């Protein structure tokens, strides 16, 4: 049973212009997406830069104004209540930011950074608070003495762990992770990803994992949605997406990911060129006359593709 549903979410940014600086058009940053979240599952959001991934995440957590659509959390419509800072919703949904460095106030010590959600959401005594902070540090595998330090004294991976500690301080149900590892080196990335998986299992967390790195998403997520121009082109379990991609855009994306082996790279290159050619040719069938992505339609229980049925047949 999902604890949260997102229905036809839209975020439009006005473009002002014309003589009186009126709204002449909109940027359809997010243009009608629907999702459901189940406990303990990780959902991946993949797409090219600028396709609206971050906006989706931010609008869910309340950092962006939603233009249309609704968010139902535990049966309650919270679309317009997200901005009530200390609501239960805000406590239960937390976020991990891409740039761990800039997501922490450089002038605050670690203990104050970690205390922020605790003070806002949980009414604890100072002793309890400090105990909780130590606990959190222990969870993310950082020593006690980190409390008194400033963020810049930590490496990227450690900072990201502190970010995670802060996000889990209030025992949230869903953590939105917006490219949590893309700024990190391979070796550090591995630490953080492992760690995120650990606490997911331990606390039954759900993730909305935003990334442009398909490898990472595949590693982390149970369900994956491929986003293009503010809409989903394809959505399904990771097997659906990786083993049985249906949408031409998904295929193109997948073919572009380099493999970590030089063996057979010439073949891959040929395949890539083939997919690219297909994309140019069949492109029309997958997008309507305005270049907009069609609505998703199911092709299995878990697998949804945005295309006309004729395209699907042709694509197969």
């Amino acid at each position, binding site marked *: 049973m999902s604890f949260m549903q997102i229905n036809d979410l839209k975020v439009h940014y006005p473009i002002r212009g014309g003589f009186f600086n009126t709204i002449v058009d909109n940027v359809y940053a997010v243009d009608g997406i629907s999702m459901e979240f189940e406990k303990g599952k990780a959902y991946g959001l993949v797409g090219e830069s600028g396709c609206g991934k971050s906006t989706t995440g931010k609008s869910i957590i309340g950092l962006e104004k939603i233009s249309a659509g609704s968010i139902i959390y535990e049966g309650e419509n919270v679309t317009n209540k997200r901005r009530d800072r200390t609501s239960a919703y*805000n406590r239960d949904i937390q976020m991990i930011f891409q740039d761990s460095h800039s997501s922490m106030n450089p002038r605050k010590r670690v203990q104050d950074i970690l205390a922020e*959600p605790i003070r806002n959401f949980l009414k604890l005594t100072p002793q309890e608070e400090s105990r909780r902070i130590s606990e959190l540090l222990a969870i993310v595998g950082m020593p006690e003495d980190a409390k008194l330090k400033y963020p810049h004294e930590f490496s990227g991976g450690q900072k990201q762990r502190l970010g995670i500690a802060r996000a889990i301080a209030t025992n949230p149900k869903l953590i939105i992770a917006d490219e949590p590892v893309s700024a990190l080196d391979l070796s550090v990335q591995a630490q953080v990803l492992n760690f995120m998986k650990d606490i997911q299992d331990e606390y039954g967390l759900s993730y909305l994992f935003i990334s442009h790195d398909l490898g990472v998403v595949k590693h982390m997520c149970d369900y994956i949605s491929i986003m293009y121009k503010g809409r989903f082109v394809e959505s399904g379990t990771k097997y659906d997406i990786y083993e049985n991609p249906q949408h031409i855009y998904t295929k193109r994306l997948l073919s572009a990911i380099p493999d970590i082996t030089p063996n057979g790279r010439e073949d891959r290159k040929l395949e890539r060129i083939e997919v690219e050619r297909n994309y140019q040719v069949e492109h029309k069938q997958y997008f309507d006359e305005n270049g907009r992505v069609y609505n998703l339609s199911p092709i299995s229980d878990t697998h949804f593709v945005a295309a006309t049925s004729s395209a699907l047949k042709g694509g197969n």
Partner: protein
Amino acid sequence: MVKEKDNKKEQEIVSAPPTGFQVIWREFLKDKVAMFSLIVMVVTIFGVFIASLFFDPAEVMKVSLRNKYAPPSSTHWLGADIGGSDILGQLIIGAKNSLLIAIAITLITGITGIFIGLACGYFGGWIDNMFMRIIDFFITLPSLMIIIVFITIVPKYTVFTFILIISIFGWTGIARLIRSKSLSESRRDYVNASKTLGTNDFVIIFKEVMPNISSILIVEATLSFAGNIGIETGLTYLGFGLPPSTPSLGTLVAYANNPLVMSTYWWVWLPAALFILILMLSINYVGQALRRAADAKQRLG
């Protein structure tokens, strides 16, 4: 983990936020000129305030005609002006007044500018729009002229009204700068993080955003302080300065308008002019050093 501990030990040395006092201090240690300026600045400012305790304004401004343009001597260390009033006393009290005026203007414009700038940058939207229109309007005002008209209007023209009038026009620049800083700062993830962590806007503005632009604030305050020191002199020259009975640097410097005083009675205007020059120079150098300290890219040390 063992090794990591070692790493941490090494880092302990720099346990301060990246824009803390150490950084500033290091910057000064690196830059001899700035260091020297800092000393000059501190010494002059404190010197003026302390020395002014030894002068009685009424006594200093006493006209003693027989001492008209008395050259420097043991009774009048820096000579006397046209009315035979002691230049040193006027210089000290005038400097004190100028400093107080500068401080007051800096504070008033600074605080207004900071409040408005922070709010505009953080909230954006109509608040920002409204204030930006107002600021745009102010910026295109021919402020010097309007200040002059203002000054001719106020019935009781005192140091206090002077400060107010200047401040009316002074806050916009600061507000603009703070706004742009606050704007970029407010778009940073730590602000977003605080929002998602349930902190309310005012706490974010004053406890998160403001401390992070504090270095800019200090730099701006310093530089605008330097600018404000000289503000009275120009108006005095044009005849719209403080009342002549108030000792002021402007009055002293404005004596230079007379070529005879400029060349023959140099002791009347030169000390005040030099005072302003040296003080503004040193504050400027200090401000620049602070600016470098605030900007990691430009740091020397």
